[in-house]
């Protein structure tokens, strides 16, 4: 059949599902922002950790990031995709039932996360903390979403896919690949597991995932939303079709390579680091392609910037996007990373994107959609303007204070005096210096949250005034069978080919970077001069992961003079080869711990964990007093060690069979040491002993211990 003109058909869109996702988005945005604000305040004022295990910074931060990414941004994406896809394809969603399963399944996942993260169930991998049952649920729900989305494409009444849909496709395909590969793990209990990846391998997979979560969860879907809602709201044609083609493929192909820029100066092989850096730099122009295509679409409509809050939010969002995607490549340059990495600069960078780009674009979408979905007018444009300025001020305050904090601290860490000594050998000195900036950041967060609450009120009043809620019905012409066109235009009519091409585009970089590291890993494992952790140390390590120590501490000494002087010889690939998961960290709110073993007596650690202020007066680290009360889980150790053995950690069968007994023996001797040094008695069954055993093992696992007064640098 090849008729170009067909008759008009009536379509009723499913707007109920959009309303649901939108409201869920707003509820969880509130949770995410409030958790973020509390976490920010905890860094400025440690007593807010309140010595409550489930509320300490180490557990709260993952809750905040997961809520912001998957609950707030996730629901925003789904709302926008369900709304725009139906209209761009002139059809109702493929299956209302799948839509409902997707909605309720996703909210259930969020609830499970909101319960399990504060309880300390964590995989210890950033933005992938959720444990294996939830990982499986995410996979299933994502597949449901994909079936529903591609099903809708299959029944479309519009042959060609608009650019927004390209971005949705890339998102759905890539997130599936990232999530599955990064979450391959072996359970050792109904809620715990170890990843199959270890050390440098895990680091690379994790940051390939982590970076591309930013790319394909926080960038591509939002670009898709921008391509739909911006021209709709401004009622202007998109600036350049050609540009959208080039920057789409540029982004999809290049983004996937950039992960290693999170691992510059680590023990990741240098060629991979360099690849990460250069691809990040090449990402600059494709990213800006999206920004300029959006901004130039507003040519001739700039007056709206004054009158229309939606346009205001969108322009600010695009500007923040442009800023963040310029700063990203900048931070990927090795010498800039040397200063910025592990500092709050990165936190500032992320929030320019998260608050400015994702936040403001979502708000614009909400202001656009709510009146449409509830068939009424927005209650107050003035309040929307108030929201805009509060939010804007909040972001600026947040960003400026964090960049200042990051650069200040980064330079202090690196400062070396004329006599070849560190100028600030005391780590806590560099923390105290930036605490005022932590207050400024929290104030920025409070502004942002305040603005959001104004929006909630505005939306509430708008909805309250609505008298009619129904699904939109339109009469559309079926253009499914119009001529295919040539070149890219033809491709836009072929869903399967298009999807497979995007898949290939993201697989190229993935395979080239990851595969060699995997094989390298099995090679090192054979020759590694490293002893695995003892069972008690494993128990301690699991406590370290549970408490989220990795959100404040790195375990990776970079090959730079200032680091070597402060922490000792650079970390090597071998040292973390048995680390399932790796714990290199990404932020040093506290000092690096890769070689903290034997640096202090056991009693020092005991006192420090119970009350850091008792040994380091100005410390901002939370107190972990419950570790003195809670009992070590010796029983599960056999299971844990056996899982690790199956993953290739060289434990003997006896070590597996005797794991709990070996651990109890070691615990006795550590407890004795604490007592001998003047500490309390009878701690052998307490978690603190396991944790101390682990801390004392850090950097001490080489079979031939390295001389402590000498730096070893590999050729």
């Amino acid at each position: 059949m090849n008729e170009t003109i067909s008759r008009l058909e009536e379509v009723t869109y499913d707007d109920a599902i959009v309303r649901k996702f939108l409201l869920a988005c707003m509820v969880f945005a509130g949770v995410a922002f409030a958790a973020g604000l509390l976490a920010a305040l905890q860094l400025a004022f440690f007593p807010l950790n309140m010595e409550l295990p489930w509320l300490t910074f180490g557990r709260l931060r993952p809750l905040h990031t997961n809520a912001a990414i998957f609950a707030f941004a996730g629901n925003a994406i789904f709302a926008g995709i369900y709304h725009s896809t139906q209209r761009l394809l002139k059809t109702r969603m493929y299956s209302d039932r799948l839509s409902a399963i997707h909605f309720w399944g996703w909210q259930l996942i969020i609830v499970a996360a909101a319960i399990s993260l504060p309880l300390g169930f964590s995989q210890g991998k950033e933005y992938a903390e959720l444990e294996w049952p939830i990982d499986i649920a995410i996979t299933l729900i994502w597949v449901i979403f994909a079936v529903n989305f591609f099903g809708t494409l299959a029944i479309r009444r519009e042959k060609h896919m608009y650019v927004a849909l390209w971005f949705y496709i890339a998102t759905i395909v890539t997130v599936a690949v990232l999530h599955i590969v990064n979450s391959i793990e072996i359970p050792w209990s109904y809620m715990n597991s170890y990843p199959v990846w270890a050390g440098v391998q895990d680091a690379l997979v994790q940051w390939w995932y982590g970076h591309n979560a930013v790319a394909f969860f926080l960038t591509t879907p939002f670009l898709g939303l921008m391509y739909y809602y911006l021209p709709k709201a401004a009622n202007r044609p998109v600036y350049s079709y050609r540009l959208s083609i080039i920057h789409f493929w540029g982004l999809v192909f290049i983004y996937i390579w950039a992960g290693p820029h999170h691992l510059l100066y680590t023990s990741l092989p240098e060629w991979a680091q360099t690849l990460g850096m250069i691809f990040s730099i090449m990402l600059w122009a494709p990213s800006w392609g999206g920004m300029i295509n959006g901004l130039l679409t507003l040519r001739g409509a700039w007056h709206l910037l004054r009158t229309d809050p939606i346009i205001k939010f969108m322009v600010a969002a695009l500007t923040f996007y442009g800023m963040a995607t310029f700063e990203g490549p900048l931070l990927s340059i090795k010498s800039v990373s040397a200063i910025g990495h592990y500092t709050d600069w990165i936190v500032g960078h992320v929030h320019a994107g998260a608050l400015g780009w994702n936040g403001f674009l979502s708000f614009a979408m909400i202001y656009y959609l709510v009146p449409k979905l509830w068939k009424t007018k927005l209650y107050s444009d003035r309040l929307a303007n108030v929201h805009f300025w509060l939010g804007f001020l909040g972001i600026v305050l947040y960003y400026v204070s964090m960049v200042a904090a990051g650069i200040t601290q980064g330079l202090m860490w690196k400062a070396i005096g004329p006599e070849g000594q560190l100028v600030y050998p005391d780590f806590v000195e560099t923390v105290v210096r930036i605490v005022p900036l932590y207050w400024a950041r929290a104030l920025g967060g409070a502004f942002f949250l305040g603005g959001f609450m104004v929006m909630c009120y505005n939306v509430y009043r708008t909805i309250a005034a609505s008298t009619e809620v129904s699904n939109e019905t339109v009469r559309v012409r079926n253009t499914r069978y119009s001529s295919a066109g040539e070149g890219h235009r033809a491709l836009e009519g072929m869903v399967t080919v298009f999807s497979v091409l995007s898949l290939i585009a993201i697989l190229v970089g993935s395979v080239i970077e990851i595969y060699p590291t995997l094989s390298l890993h099995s090679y090192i494992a054979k020759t590694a001069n490293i002893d695995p952790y003892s069972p008690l140390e494993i128990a301690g390590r699991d406590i370290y992961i549970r408490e989220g120590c990795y959100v404040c501490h790195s375990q990776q000494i970079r090959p730079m003079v200032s680091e070597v002087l402060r922490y000792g010889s650079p970390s090597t690939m071998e040292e973390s080869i048995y680390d399932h998961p790796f714990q290199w960290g990404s932020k040093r709110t506290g000092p690096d711990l890769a070689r903290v073993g034997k640096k202090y007596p056991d009693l020092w650690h005991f006192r420090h964990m119970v009350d850091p202020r008792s040994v380091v007066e100005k410390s901002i680290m939370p107190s972990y007093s419950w570790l003195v009360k809670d009992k070590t889980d010796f029983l599960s150790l056999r299971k844990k060690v056996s899982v690790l053995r199956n993953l290739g950690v060289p434990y003997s069968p006896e070590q597996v069979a005797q794991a709990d007994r070996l651990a109890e023996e070691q615990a006795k001797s550590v407890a004795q040491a604490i007592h001998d040094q003047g500490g309390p008695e009878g701690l052998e069954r307490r978690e603190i002993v396991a944790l101390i055993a682990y801390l004392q093992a850090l950097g001490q696992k080489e079979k031939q211990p390295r001389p402590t007064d000498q730096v070893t640098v590999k050729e």
Partner: protein
Amino acid sequence: MEDHEYDGIQELDNPLPNWWLLTFLGTIIFAYLYYLHYESGSGPTINQELKADLAVIEAAKAKRGTKSDSEEELQKLLASAAVLNEGKAVFQGKCAACHGADLQGVIGPDLTDDYWLHGQGKLADIATIVRKGVVEKGMPPWDGQLKDAEVSAVTVYIVSKRGSHPANSKGPQGEKIVSN
């Protein structure tokens, strides 16, 4: 204007802005050259750079020389209130966590009594221990951390507290030395 339209959205087909295209090409060329330079041998590796930097530090250290702590010079400092004050500040900031605010001993030993684990309790002995530490016993080495003057000051401060009999002393550790 492209001839298609999606839900009322139309598309223009403006050419790519030149500056944008040049930026894109520029970054690609830079990326290629950078990789070639650093990964095919001509540029230094990170570890080579580190070694060069470490050599500079070693040279600075050599120039500084290892200070030999002389008993007589330290003795002279005992009379200086300024030095004692500085020593107190250093001690409270860095040592009190382990030795207690009154030097009574907590994790590390009491430093006011006549019992010493290392050396004879003389000024020079103490300065040496402070510099080198006893790493395996949990006394950190302070050499790279404290300046020479600070080591002297804290040493003098410790000796000035000799016999102060603080409350809650950890009790004697080591050999009793009948020193000067």
